[in-house]
């Protein structure tokens, strides 16, 4: 790859403690209540027989088959997601003979900047040939230790 110089700029920003805002506590509480309610509703749907629910007047439920099927589908999706993500990562890595590993549009179109004596030199993408010459031809013993 080419050598690029990074200038790290750190600005002291204001840090706001998120846990002190009152709005966040309300969101947390609402989320807790709704998730507990949802879980108890799911248990009721799964375990209580149809006849009891019908006698209470609640007749419009999805089939009980889905109480087992939905968590299973979710679990399989997560497992396949792991495998799929790994595969997609490997497929989108450029191969060894692709031009992306050497250069790209930014490096081709960059304008040469004038060298100024006092200032820090401007950011520039150095070509692979130059970097190789600096690393492997000039410094003779740097890389030969095993």
């Amino acid at each position, binding site marked *: 790859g080419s050598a690029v110089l990074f200038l790290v700029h750190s600005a002291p920003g204001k840090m706001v403690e998120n846990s002190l805002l009152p709005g966040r506590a309300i969101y947390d509480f609402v989320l807790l209540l709704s998730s507990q309610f949802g879980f108890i509703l799911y248990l009721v749907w799964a375990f209580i027989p149809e006849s009891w629910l019908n006698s209470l007047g609640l007749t419009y439920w999805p089939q009980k088959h889905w109480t087992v099927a939905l968590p299973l589908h979710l679990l399989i999706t997560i497992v396949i997601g792991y495998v799929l993500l790994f595969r997609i990562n490997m497929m989108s890595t450029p191969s060894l003979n692709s031009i992306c*590993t050497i250069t790209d549009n930014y490096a081709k179109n960059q304008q040469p900047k004038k060298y100024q004596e006092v200032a820090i030199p401007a950011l520039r993408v150095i070509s692979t040939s130059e970097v190789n010459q600096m690393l492997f031809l000039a410094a003779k013993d740097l890389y030969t230790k095993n």
Partner: protein
Amino acid sequence: MEDERSFSDICGGRLALQRRYYSPSCREFCLSCPRLSLRSLTAVTCTVWLAAYGLFTLCENSMILSAAIFITLLGLLGYLHFVKIDQETLLIIDSLGIQMTSSYASGKESTTFIEMDKVKDIVINEAIYMQKVIYYLCILLKDPVEPHGISQVVPVFQSAKPRLDCLIEVYRSCQEILAHQKATSTSP
């Protein structure tokens, strides 16, 4: 002048680099990969035959055993002829070009030749390969449209995959020849 040294590849296997200096403008580098080991061959054969025997005890069909023998033989022949590369050679001739030869375990040889006019540079590049970042030597080809552009990247020693110390040796020798070639081509 001939010279032989041993290096290691990215997985830790042993490689032998043979350098031949025919003349100041012609050099050859020959990398020999480790031979097919008897241990891995017996391991693969035993697993295939044990699996076939397991299937045979389930199905009671003796065709499975003969099919397993056929598959093992054909697989071995195909592997030796199409996959297993024994030796990779890089020959650089100053004003002519670069030739890369791969010789397979069954004796087959495949050759690629690149003219010196098309060669821009030979560099050591780093890239991600499987789960590693490796160094590999590659030939950069000139772009006919743009004078300073690169049209193609040709990696060299693809199946041997030597480590950086071996690559630096080959890189330095190649750069000597390329520098010599650029000096003679620009002078009238």
